[in-house]
């Protein structure tokens, strides 16, 4: 091979190697950016999950800000952050899809005679809610200030027994039924489910109702077993048969009045 040809060959070799190295760096850069995004999503998911876990213990509310907006989908079992990072959420929460950097959390107790669960309602702070006057009293003042509006035009979500708005999420509450954007659900008349409907999609609402119903059934069994125990050491005038039947049949008014009656007779109450 002549000297000129050898030099030409060297340059071709350098160019090929250079292109391979450049492609490697470009590939690495793309992968690295994806990885950074996944890392950020994992950190957001961790922060978001911790916020929910730390709130379950008691009725409260919280307002929290994040460094940048992120999207969240809840499929009733898992929370999916930015369509990528998925974590299991075994507790009952109530939320609609959102993309936001400011969130409001509100923990509300669900009682059906006795305490069944504390459910975390989560909302984008920018979403504005209009509630009929009759539902406003059950909302804590700070949550009211952050999320509620008295103007139907400003509202993104309208919760009412008669009013609706075009292009908005409409929650219609009418005698034992809650209608969320055309999907109808029967409910037990508790205001808790009115708030749950306001904060969740129809799918999440259906799942919240199912989860609470399952939990209620477990608690009924716990109280039945507890009654068996306390009736053993209480005096004979304390009759637990009626309250046991009321709990077993899910008669809420009956179980509450019978529980109060036990307290009046100086007997151990059931709940």
């Amino acid at each position: 091979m002549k000297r000129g040809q050898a030099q030409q060959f060297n340059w071709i070799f350098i160019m090929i190697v250079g292109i391979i190295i450049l492609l490697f760096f470009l590939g690495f850069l793309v992968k690295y950016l994806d990885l950074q995004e996944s890392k950020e999503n994992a950190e957001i998911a961790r922060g978001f999950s911790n916020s929910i876990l730390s709130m379950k213990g008691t009725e409260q509310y919280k307002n929290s800000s994040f460094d940048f907006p992120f999207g969240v989908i809840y499929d009733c079992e898992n929370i999916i952050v930015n369509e990528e990072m998925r974590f299991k959420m075994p507790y009952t929460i109530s939320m609609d899809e959102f993309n936001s950097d400011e969130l409001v959390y509100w923990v509300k107790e669900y009682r059906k005679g006795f305490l069944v669960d504390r459910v975390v309602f989560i909302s984008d702070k920018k979403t504005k809610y209009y509630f009929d006057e009759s539902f406003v009293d059950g909302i804590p003042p700070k949550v009211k200030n952050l999320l509620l509006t008295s103007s139907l035009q400003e509202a993104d979500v309208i919760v009412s027994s008669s009013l609706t708005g075009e292009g908005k999420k409409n929650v219609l509450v009418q005698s034992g039924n809650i209608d969320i954007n055309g999907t109808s659900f029967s409910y037990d008349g508790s205001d808790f489910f009115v708030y749950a409907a306001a904060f969740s999609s129809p799918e999440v609402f259906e799942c919240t109702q199912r989860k609470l119903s399952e939990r209620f059934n477990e608690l009924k069994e716990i109280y039945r077993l507890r009654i068996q125990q306390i009736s053993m050491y209480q005096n004979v005038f304390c009759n637990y048969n009626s309250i046991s039947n009321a709990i077993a049949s899910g008669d809420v008014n009956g179980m509450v009045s019978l529980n109060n009656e036990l307290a009046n007779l100086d007997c151990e109450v059931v709940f």
Partner: protein
Amino acid sequence: MQESIFVVFIFFIILMIGMIVFYQLEVRSISNIKSESEENAFYHMISYIPSMPELQCSRLGIQEECIDLTKAYAFENLQSAYYREVFGGKKIILNIDGEEILLYDWNPENFNGVRKINSPVSVFDSRENKYLIGVLEVNMYEE
């Protein structure tokens, strides 16, 4: 010329190896964040369990910061698969006056170890009408 090419070539090979190692470390840091998240959920259980309506003391609808002993016995006898979704692979024990109340136990088929946390809790014994100090123990089966 060829020597220079060789040196540059070796340099880039070393650089590539460095980048691949760095990338692997970053991937590992993501799985660390995920496991930290699971760990937080585990540590959180020690404060969540005493506040569950299934165990928490309540009188006429007012909740108290204690575990009701009769509810703990009821929970021990419940035998429900419902709580597997909430607790997963855990063993939860309430120790009180030398007595061990097994509140929940479900272990996955293959687990490599057990991590344990415990915390003192106030326990109300309605039979004696007195408060006791118990220890709530949560064991996590690690897969």
